[in-house]
Each structure stands twice: as C-alpha cells, then as structure tokens.
C-alpha cells in the first residue's frame, strides 16, 4: 500500500482498531462500563481530529486542503475508494454520531445489566461500514460497506435479547434488511452486466452514452434501476418500504434506536449519493420521477401516522420517516435540475446540510427519551413525559429545543436545514417546487405531534411530581453538545455551508 492509500484509509483503520481495543480492554478488566465509554469517546474524538487533518476540506477550514486521496487508482485516476471532501464530511458526521451514541448509551444500558463493551464494539464496526460507504467508488465496495453497516445494526436491534419486543423488532429488521440487500445486489448485478464495469466512474461513462441517446435504455438496465431504487428505498425507510422501521425502533434499546434512526439512514444516503448521483447520474431523468413520488409519499405518510402515536419511540420512528422524505426532496432538487446547473449542486448541498442537522437533533431527542428511561421500568409512552419540565429542567429544555428544531422553528438548526432544502427545491422548479410547498404543509402537521410532547412536559402535572430524573455525566455532556449545536448553529452557518458545498462539488 502506498502512503496515499494509507492516508485515505487511516480513519477507517483507526475505527476498527478502536473497536478491537474496546474488546481487549473489556477482556482484561470486565464490566467497567464507564471506562469503556471514556475510551470510546476519547478514541472517537481523536479520530475526528485525524479525519479533519487527513481529509480534504474547503480552504480556510481544513488544515491540509487538497484534492483528496485515491485508493488503487486505475488508468483514468479513479480509485475504488476515495477520500474527497464528501468522504471527509460524512466521516466526521459518522464518527460524531458514534461518539454521541456512546455517550448516551451508558446510562441506559448499565441499569439494565446490558454489557457496554459489546454495544460499543458493535457500534464501531457498524460505523466503519458507514465510513466505507462514504468513500466507495466501486459497486462491490459499496455493497461490502453496506453489509458491514447493517449486520452489526441487526445485532444492536436485538441487543436486549431477553426483551420480546427487541427480538421481534430485530428479526423484522433482519429479514427485511436481508431481503432488500438481495434486491440491491440484483440491481448491482444487472448494472454490472450491462455496463461491464464495477467502477462508479466506468458505469457513469457507459451510461452517459445511453443518456446522450446513442444507445437506448435496455430493459435489463431499466430493471436494474428499478431494483436499485427499491433496495435503497428499503434502507432509508422510504414509504412504502418502511414497515420494518416502527417495530425495530420501538423494540430496540433506546440508545440503539437513536443510532439506528440516524447512522444507517445517513449511510444509506451516502450509498445513494455514490450510486445514484455519481454512477447513475446520466440516467437521472429516468429516476427523478420515482424520487419525487417517494419524497411526497414518504413525508406525508410518515407525518400522518406519527400524529396518532402515543409511544414516543414509535412517534419519533415515524417522524424519522417523514424526515427521510425531506432529505429526498434535496435529492429530487438535484435530479430535477439540468446537468451542470447551480440548482443541481444546491440540491446536494441541501441534502448534506439536512442530514447533518438531522443527526444532531434526532439523536438529541432520542437521548432525552433514553435519559428519561434511565430507571428500568419507565416506559417510552408519552405519559412518561408528564411534568418533565419541572422534574428535570435541563432535560425539559433540551427536549423542547430538539423538538422545535425537528419542526423547523428558527433560529434552531432544523430551520436552516429545512430552508436550505426548500430553497434548493424552489430553484429547481416544476414538480420539485410543488414538493417544497408540500414539505411546508407537512412541517406544520408535524408541529402538532412534536408540540404534544411539549404539552406533556410543561402543561401537565406528573403523577409523582417529586420524582426527579437524575442525569449521568456522559448523558449530560452529550445533551449539552447536541443542544448547543442545535441552538447556536446560526453563528457558524458560513463555514458549515462551505463544507457542504465542498462535499457537493466533490460529487459533481
């Protein structure tokens, strides 16, 4: 391996090393949950620094701006794995998601006697899969990254193995997940068979001819496109391929649910970006319609069903489906715009912006649920939130902030995310602009069920008002980090926009 390869893969290698270190430490001193958390958190923080140093970032932000690093470059200089600005951005995000998940997990798992080390190691392996997806430029590597991401996810979902709901959710997640992976693999095989290349650049090259009209869209390729769309729709939990989500989310231990709602979802979007935006971009006129319909149905149905939920985890599960819809609007803005236009790039920027914002606010919301459930026996029914504003002021304020951000009330981060997506959609125009209008109506409908939680926290009395909710040190730290990121994003918008812009330019 050349120095270039090592630089490109270093963050990935470090995450795997950290996972193994966690296992080894647990073997030497078993049962020291706090120590494991501290190790994981410091390790992940260090890896974030490494990512920021190794990876290219926009000038003025990154320490070592550069064009990026390719692994095993071929004749045209395109590697099977690339560390470009998109990889850097997504890796930072994934590592941060893992860091927050590790912070939030310990106070929930420990009282339930669930082992922390196994959780942490599994989580890190999953994250390494997500990071592999972020930079993969080969169909096989993409599939490898995907499986590396989802297999530990199935384990995490069924992690509370004596809990019937957890097992049920995990089995559903596993069955539908494997099924969708198979469909995706079929699609990849058809694309490979037609284009004769597994390299993303090679596929795009062949498909450019199809788009230019010199060759027709063969039925086999159309079939492959349909299978790929279905496969990724399962992975991001777009309607009507979302049925595994509520059960898996409700059954999993709450910190796992938090991770599942952001990690695999954003990683699946990384897959979409590498697969659809890079490899299949020449055919985007053929798949934009599907994305528009998926976006419209996903956000609307997700929100409508979320309104009726009395279980917070289920409610947040359906709401995360709705947010998938908003992200798809960003993708539709890219796909609906003419190639090479500003609107095209803005769609991708909006998508990047939104997934990052979503990661913070959704993880934060789940962290509040998990902090509330620290004492075993506290359910995730909405009634558990009654009087929380008085019983645990910090938790109440943090949860309110995350919910306001999920609605998209300014000046929280969620608002800027929504505004970016709407702006991109309006720029693209046509049916995508109609999606923007639908999105705002959805946001208003979503306000109803998010605010219902605020109603319980502040406007109803607890059955037992004296009962406080003690927060552990790690949970407190994680809540403060994500709350500050959600509340004060308005001061760092310019560098953040530069980063997502760099990531989007890397793709185009």
């Amino acid at each position: 391996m050349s120095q270039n390869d090592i630089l490109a893969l270093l963050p990935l290698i470090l995450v795997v090393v950290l996972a193994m270190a966690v296992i080894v430490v647990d073997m030497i001193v078993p049962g020291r949950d706090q120590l494991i958390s501290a190790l994981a958190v410091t390790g992940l923080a260090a890896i974030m620094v490494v990512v920021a140093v190794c990876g290219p970032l926009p000038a003025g932000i990154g320490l070592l701006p550069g064009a990026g690093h390719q692994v095993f470059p071929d004749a045209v200089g395109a590697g099977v794995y690339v560390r470009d600005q998109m990889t850097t951005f997504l890796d930072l995000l994934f590592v941060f998601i893992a860091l927050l998940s590790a912070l939030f997990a310990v106070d929930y798992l420990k009282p339930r006697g669930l082992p922390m080390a196994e959780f942490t190691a599994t989580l890190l392996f999953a994250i390494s899969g997500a990071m592999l997806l972020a930079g993969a430029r080969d169909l096989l590597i993409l599939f490898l990254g995907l499986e590396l991401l989802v297999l530990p996810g199935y384990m995490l979902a069924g992690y509370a193995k004596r809990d019937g709901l957890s097992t049920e959710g995990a089995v559903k997640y596993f069955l539908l997940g494997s099924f969708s992976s198979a469909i995706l693999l079929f699609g990849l095989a058809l694309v490979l068979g037609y284009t004769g290349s597994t390299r993303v650049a090679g596929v795009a090259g062949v498909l450019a001819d199809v788009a230019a009209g010199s060759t027709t869209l063969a039925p086999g390729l159309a079939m492959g496109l349909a299978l790929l769309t279905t496969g990724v729709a399962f992975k991001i939990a777009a309607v009507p391929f979302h049925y595994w989500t509520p059960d898996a989310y409700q059954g999993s231990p709450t910190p796992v649910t938090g991770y599942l709602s952001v990690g695999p979802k954003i990683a699946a979007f990384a897959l979409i970006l590498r697969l659809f935006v890079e490899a299949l971009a020449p055919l985007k006129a053929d798949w934009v319609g599907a994305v528009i319909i998926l976006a419209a149905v996903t956000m609307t149905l997700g929100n409508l069903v979320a309104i009726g939920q009395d279980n917070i985890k289920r409610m947040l599960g359906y709401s995360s489906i709705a947010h998938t819809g908003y992200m798809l609007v960003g993708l539709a803005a890219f796909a609906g715009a003419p190639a090479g236009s500003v609107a095209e790039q803005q769609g991708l920027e909006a998508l990047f912006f939104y997934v990052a914002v979503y990661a913070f606010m959704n993880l934060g919301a789940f962290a509040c649920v998990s902090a509330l459930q620290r004492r075993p026996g506290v359910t995730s029914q909405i009634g558990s939130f009654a009087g929380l504003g008085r019983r645990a002021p910090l938790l109440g304020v943090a949860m309110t902030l995350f919910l306001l951000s999920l609605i998209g009330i300014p000046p929280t981060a969620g608002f800027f995310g929504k505004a970016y997506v709407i702006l991109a959609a309006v720029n693209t125009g046509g049916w995508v602009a109609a999606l923007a209008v639908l999105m705002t109506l959805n946001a208003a409908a979503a306000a109803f069920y998010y605010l219902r939680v605020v109603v319980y926290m502040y406007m109803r009395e607890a059955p037992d008002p004296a009962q406080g909710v003690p927060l552990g040190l790690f949970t407190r730290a994680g809540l403060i980090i994500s709350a500050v990121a959600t509340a004060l994003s308005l001061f760092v918008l310019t560098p953040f926009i530069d980063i997502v812009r760099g990531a989007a330019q890397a793709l185009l």
Partner: protein
Amino acid sequence: MVLSGVPLLTVVTFAPLVGALLIALVPRQREGLIRWLALTAAVVAFVASLALLVDFRPDIAGFQAVEEVAWIPAFGIEYKLGLDGISLVLVILTTTLSAISILASFGPIKSRMKEYLISFLILEVGLIGVFLALDLFLFYIFWEIVLVPMYLIIGIWGGANRIYATLKFVLYTLVGSLLMLVAILATAFSFQAATGSWAGAFDFEQLRTFGFDPGLQFLAFGAFFLAFAIKVPMFPLHTWLPDAHVEAPTAGSVILAAVMLKLGAYGFIRFALPLFPQAAQEWAPAIIVLSLIAIIYGAIVALVQPDLKKLVAYSSVSHMGFVTLGIFIFQEQGLQGAILQMVNHGVITGALFLLVGVIYERTHDRAIAKMGGLAAPTPVYAAIFGFFMLASLGLPGMSGFVGEFLVLLGTFDVSPIAAAIATFVIILSAAYLMWMFQRVVFGELSDFLRGLGHHLTDMTPRELLTVTPLVGLTLALGVAPGLVLDLIAMPVTEVLARVAAPLVGAAGP
C-alpha cells in the same frame, strides 16, 4: 446625530434577550430579583426605543439608522435592521406595552415566574425584530420566534382549555408562515436568477425596486397574504383568536391584541404591498370585501358574547377590519388612518384586556351575566373602564376616533358604498360596548359579586400604574394625532407611490 455610533436598533431588539439570559442564571427562589431584572430589561428596551426619536428625521425618505452585517454571504443573507416612521411607531408601541404587560403579570402569575418572564422577554425580542428587520430571511426568523413563547404563555399559564387554544394558535400561524417562507425563497431566487448573484437577494431595499414577474407576484402575494391575514386576523381565518384570547393569561392577551395582531398589518404595509404591487392591486377588491365582512361580523358576534374577554376579542376582529380596509383602499388618508388605528387599537384594546384581567383577578370569572353594579364598590375601576369603553367605540377627543375617521374618509374617497357599510358598523360597536358596560357596571350589585364581599376591592396602585400611561396615550393621540401622523407621512407616501406605479416584469420568472 447625538447617538451616532451606537447600534441603537440592536440594543432595542436584544435588550430583552439579555434580560432573559440573566434571569436564566438566577435561581428560581429569588423571585424578587427575577421580577426586577425582567422589568429593567423591558424598561431599557423602552428607553432605547424612545432614544430612537432623537435622531429620527421624519422628512427623509427610505430607512434610517440602518445596521448591516453580512450573515450568510453564500446566499446574500444579512443581519439588517432599519427604521422608518411606521416601524418607529410600532416599536415604541411594543416596548411600551411589553413593559406594562410585565408589570401587570406580577400579580396574576402565580407559578413558574422565572419561565414566564423568560418567555415574555423572548417574545418581545421577536416582536421588535419583526418591525425592524429589513432582510426578508431575518424578518422570517423574528416572525417565527414570536410563535414559541406565545405558545408556552398560553399553554402553561392559560385557562382551562389552554392546550386546545394554544395548539390551534400555533398550527394556524405555522401553516401561513411556512408558505411565506417558500415565497420569500422563491422571490430571492427570482432576484438571483435575474441579477446572476445572490448579493441583495433577501435585502428588502433592493427587492422593492426590483419588479417581479406578475405570475410570481400573484403566487407570492398569496402566500404572504395567508401568513399576514391569519395574524391580523382577517375573516374567515380569525377563529384561533377568540380561543387564544380567552385562554391566555391577561398579559398574554394584552400583547396578543396590542402588538401581535399588528404584525400582520405591518407585514402588508412593509412587505406585501411594495414587493408585489401589481398582485396587491389584483387582490385588493377581494381583501376589501373580506375587511368589510370582518368589520360587520366581528361587531355582530361581539354583541352576543356572554364572556367579557370574548367580546373584546371579537371587537378586535372588527377593529382590525378597519385596518385592512384602510390599507387596501390605497389612499393616503386611508393608509394613515390604518396605521393610526393600529396604534390606537393596541393602546385601547390592550387597556381593555388589562381591565378585564383586573376583574378576573377578583372574581375568577368573566361571564357578563354574573356581573353588575361595579360602579358602587369599585368607582375608580368603573371610571377607567368607562373611559376605555368610550375610546374603543370611537368617541371624538380620544384616539380611536381619529383612526377610524381617517380610514372612513379615505374609503369614501374611493368607494362611498364601502364607507357607508363601515360607518354603519360604528353604531353596532357603540351598541355592544355600551350594552356590555351597562350590564357590568351599572345597576344593582349582582348576587355573585355581593358574595365576594370584601374581596371585591378597587384597583391596586400597581394596576393603576399599568393603565395610567395608556389613558395618557389615548388622550394625547386623540387631541394631537399629528404625533403619529407626522412620523408616518413620508413612508405612507412611498408605499402608495409604489402601489400606484408598479414596476412590472422587469425580470424573468
């Protein structure tokens, strides 16, 4: 330029926020300190808003004291505040009534004073910001910031049916405002597409001389109209208002009526008319009809209300109908009257809600049927109530008269029929107000009130302190409306000039 160099607009806007942050640091047991901090922050904002008058030049067109800092250069979004006569008047109205409302809250609010005052001060930041923002994105942010604290104030400290009322309030306003966000982004994009640069795409001063494509104008005006009409509120989008008013605590009702309803009217004058003049012309006849319906409907419904607060709430619908009528008649006296009416309605209705709060404090009831004969046990209260009742029905010599009169004058100039319909309603408003007053204040002391015994005290010094400035303002503006009219003359001319000669289709879609 006595105060040059001081970013006074920022000080006015964010003084309450500083107060809120300080309060957040104080332990909740020290309620005295918390109250003192809140009142100080509100008074600082008030004094700073008066200081704006020092350097203000009513004879200059355009905006003054402009503060401009780049915020999101990638999209040309700026932190930009500026002042003209209309915003100046409304900012002073806001700071005055906010300080009064905070003072008025000290008695009625019994629990969670700390959270209450933090919410209230953040609400004030949003309200002032809306009146000063000159960047459309910034304007939208302030516009939405108002929503959350009001939601909490009604939902936590409100009456029995508060949760229904507060959710209704939020959902109504959110639907309108989110569509406005789409319209703001669409206009910005249209500007960017035409000029090739994002610079100035959200800057109101640039956008208002731009001249949007008529098709875009029509749609964008529709979205702005929805947001503003819900806030005003215009018939038939007013149904959240009675619920919110009835359930809100007294100070919440005061701010809701006195300032929040003005946000919509201000939005029409500041943004909707100058940005989309052609669409405004097309929409105006329908809006005038809706205004007339609101004027009549509000008055008739107020006539039959059994609840004091609901009566005042529906009278607001009627009075705000005059405001939208004055705006969309596109005539100088009409628009001047509309703005004056906004101020008057703020002062008078604010005072009426304070007075309803005073009686509610003592009786824990607002049913008109249970009242009667208040004149004997509470003479001071009865006198002040009578004063504001007369002011509300538009007695000459008080401010309510001048505003309505100017609106009617302007309307008559354009459409005598509309003026006739609106004038007829003044009789109705006299009827519901005087009838209410008669039932509450005159006659025998009702059994219900007699049962309260010595609890039925007259107004306390604190309560008197809250209404006295409003009495003064009502008289001052009634005798010398020029205080306001001189300030708003120039911006009114500018707005009407834009509507009369719309720049059309200077740019593409």
